[in-house]
């Protein structure tokens, strides 16, 4: 018992110094991670089946435009990009850990930066939930190959209590 108490005392001291990566406010891990995988074929099917209804509910116009590029939004290339974006949104939701209410997918935006990589922008309720949860410094990576897209999201948690 003494050993356990000593261990927790050490964790607390290190957390206060920001050493262990634990939030000094609540003791939760300082970093949250979310991962999701998505079949590209399923996204292409949704685009074909529901069209604009699907696109509007899940994506923002710049995301659709970037995914489609100069081709049709019904193309495999567009579906691959949209699937990566969808996986990214689900990964973000896993990081947000909403309890009382859901989070709309189109409040989470995957932004293509001029250099080619992607970042995240949270809007409206998604942004407010992230702020309330003390989440910041978001990082995203997604990729696709064959019929699969995968995304991983990191965010730092600090509740500041």
């Amino acid at each position, binding site marked *: 018992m003494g050993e356990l108490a000593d261990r927790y005392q050490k964790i607390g001291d290190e957390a206060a110094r920001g050493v262990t990566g634990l939030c000094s406010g609540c003791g939760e891990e300082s970093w949250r991670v979310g991962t999701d995988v998505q079949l590209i074929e*399923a*996204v292409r099917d*949704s685009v074909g*089946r*529901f069209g604009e*209804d*699907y696109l509007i509910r899940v994506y923002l116009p710049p995301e659709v435009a970037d995914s489609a590029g100069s081709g049709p939004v019904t193309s495999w290339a567009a579906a691959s990009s949209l699937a990566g974006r*969808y996986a990214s949104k689900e990964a973000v939701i896993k990081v947000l850990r909403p309890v009382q*209410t*859901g989070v709309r997918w189109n409040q989470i935006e995957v932004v293509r930066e001029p250099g080619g990589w992607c970042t995240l922008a949270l809007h409206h309720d998604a942004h407010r939930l992230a702020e309330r949860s003390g989440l910041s410094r978001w990082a995203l990576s997604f990729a696709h190959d064959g019929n699969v897209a995968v995304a991983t999201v990191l965010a730092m948690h600090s509740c500041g209590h």
Partner: protein
Amino acid sequence: MDDTIREILRDNGRLPVDAESLDRTTDLYRAGLTSHASVNVMLALEDAFDIEFPDALLRKSTFESIAAIAAALEVMGVDETLVSE
């Protein structure tokens, strides 16, 4: 209402099992419903019942079973007799 929900699950849920074989309380995610497929189910339900799911019901638990979906539809005031064609 359950019949309509099962039909929508059959046509949009991409389930590896027959939707007709699902009990009302069967965990649909364990039965193979993915998060993306639940988007399709949501859109199909909205089209079938002429509704729009509010943010409060855009939770994973809303689509976790036929009973849960039915309960959500009832909260939204769905009258099965008014199912759109």
